[in-house]
Structure formats: C-alpha cells, structure tokens
C-alpha cells in the first residue's frame, strides 16, 4: 500500500523481491546499492545468518526523484528464500505495492522455482491480494551459468501470464536495473490508474 504524504510531498512504495533460496535476491539489492549515487540511496540493512542467508529481510531505501512535485521513494525488500522461513515471508509481503519474482535458471532449481512461485501466490492470497492484480515482473537470474535452462522453457513454467520478464546475472549486475525499472514503472502506472474518477468533468457530460 503506497503512502502519500502531502505535507512533505512524498510518495512511498514497497517492492518485494521473492524467490527460492539462493536464487540471488540479496545479490540484486547489493548490486543496486553498489551502483546508485549516495544521495539516492539510504543504508542497506541485511538481517542474515552467519552463513549470509537472509534470516528475515534485506532492506534498501531509494529516493529516485520527483514526479509532479512529489518525491518518489521506493523501499526494496527481499524475503528469506529458504522454505522453512515461510512465516517471515508472509510478514514481509504486508503492504506490498510491487513484486519481483527472481527465478534461479539452473535446471536443478526448477522445482524450487515452481514451489516458490506457488508459495508467493498463496501468501499473497492470505493477505487478500491476487498476484495478477499487483504490479509484477519476473527475472530469470544466473543466466551466466552453463547449467541454465532454456529461456522458453522457463517462460512456459514460470510466466504463463506473460508479465514483463528479464534475463539477468545479478552477480555481474546484468539485467538488475532493467528489472527494477520495470517493477517501479508498474507500481507508478498503477498509482496513476488509481481512483475511479478517471473521467474529467467535461467528458463526463
């Protein structure tokens, strides 16, 4: 749920990176953090285990610039991908405005991708949202690896509704900003379309 503050003229949106364990969600945020100007980003917070697996979430605030005199702030979160952290994943989805599903391209992770996507749908439904109704993009990560599955197979399995999707290699940063832009665009477009009164008084008559 976006939050619009008229006195500070700010709009805040929450974007969640979802996907199976080790697919590269944290790596996406780390790359964004490393490549954005200091005046654009806040501190990145990682609540992780000693083995650098996400325990609760990563958090990266970005202030992208102004639209119509409103500062647009995006709060990026990752969920912990390991199956047994489901309770935490549910909590992080609260109030989400846009979702990136990060898939692991390695053939042997295809089951895990499918399971995680199902889990995303279930957890969103728990909160009363359908995946189809929120801004949503898919990233096929780890394209650099020799055991990456063919793209059309991944599309068929993981993106049947043909939302915007991107090939990426988060470890080198390829595709990371394309993915972020796409989801941010989806969220802002959604805001633009919000509210029933799309008709202006002239044309309504």
């Amino acid at each position, binding site marked *: 749920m976006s939050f*619009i503050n008229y006195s500070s003229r700010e709009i805040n949106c929450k974007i969640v990176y979802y996907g199976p364990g080790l697919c590269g969600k944290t790596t996406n945020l780390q790359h964004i953090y490393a490549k954005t100007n200091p005046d654009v980003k*806040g501190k990145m917070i990682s609540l992780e285990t000693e083995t650098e697996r996400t325990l609760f979430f990563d958090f990266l605030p970005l202030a992208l610039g102004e639209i*119509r005199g409103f500062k*647009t702030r995006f709060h990026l979160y990752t969920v912990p991908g390991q199956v047994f952290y489901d309770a*935490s994943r549910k909590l992080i989805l609260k109030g989400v405005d846009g979702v990136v599903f990060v898939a692991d391209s390695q053939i042997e992770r295809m089951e895990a991708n499918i399971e995680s996507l199902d889990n995303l749908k279930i957890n969103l439904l728990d909160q009363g949202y359908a995946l189809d109704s929120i801004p949503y993009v898919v990233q096929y990560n780890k394209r650099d690896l020799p055991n990456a599955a063919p793209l059309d197979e991944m599309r068929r399995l993981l993106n049947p509704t043909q939302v915007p999707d991107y090939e990426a290699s988060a470890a080198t940063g390829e595709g990371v900003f394309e993915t972020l832009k796409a989801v941010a*665009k989806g969220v802002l477009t959604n805001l*633009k379309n919000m509210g029933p009164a799309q008709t202006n008084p002239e044309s309504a008559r």
Partner: protein
Amino acid sequence: MLQTQFMMREEDSRDLQAVLERLAVDARARGVFVVDKTGQLIGEAGEMMGVDSTSLASLAAGCVAATGGLALIFGEEEFPTHYHQGERDNLHITLLGERMILLVVFDERSSLGLVRLRVKKAGGELARIFEEARKKSEAQAASTASPFADITDDDIDNLFSD
C-alpha cells in the same frame, strides 16, 4: 486492501506533529517516532533528529511484525506493547490501532512509568488523527482521481534517466 492508499493531508500532519512534540516533552523522551506497519516513517519529534529514521522505521516494523507472529502462536491476537531495555537508551513500542506503531526512546532522565502514562494519553489523540486521515483518504479515493492520474510514461522514464 492494497488498492486503498493512505494519505496524510497537511492539516493532519500538523496535528500529528503537535501531538508528537508534546509527547516528547511530557514523557521526557529523547525521541518519539510514528511508523506504519509496512515500515514507512510517518512522523518524528524530539532531540534525535538526524538518526537514520528510515532504517529505524523498517526495523521497527519488522520487529512488530515478528512479535505479532509470535503472539499468534500463543493464541494472543497481538502484543500491543513491547519494551526493550538498554544500557543507556530504552525503547517503548506500542501499537496504535490497526496500522500504526508508536516508538518512544528514553534514557535515565525519564522512567518507564512516566513514558507509559504519557503514551496512553497521546495514544488516544493519535488514534483519532489517524482515523480522520483514513476517512479522508477513503473519501478522496472515492471522489477524486489520483494526484498521479496525469503522469506520463516519460515522467516515469525520467526517474531513471541517470
């Protein structure tokens, strides 16, 4: 629901600021923060200006979310108050209605008893302000177009232009 956004109008923000500033003084707090449950900072007052309040907001929301999850396991609906005691600073956290969190940071100049008392009083006023804001958000959503209704694809592309 996702589709109803929350808006704070200028007059609501002013009322909120006044209550927070009074609470900071009355509770002899170092800092007073209001954060929503999704981790956005809504307002702050006190002498801690300049603290990384964006991180603070996100972690406070995470903390409340995790504690709320624990509550459910025990069959409690929620733990409406939590208290973290530190060497120097202490943190008092209370839930305000369905979506807001009030954090009060205090040191030895104040006491848990005083903070509790003042939070209780301010909590009622804050709940009223947010209820007002919520009603206005709903009315606004029902009656007018989004303030972003006329943004273009170019506007959005420009955000990423560097």
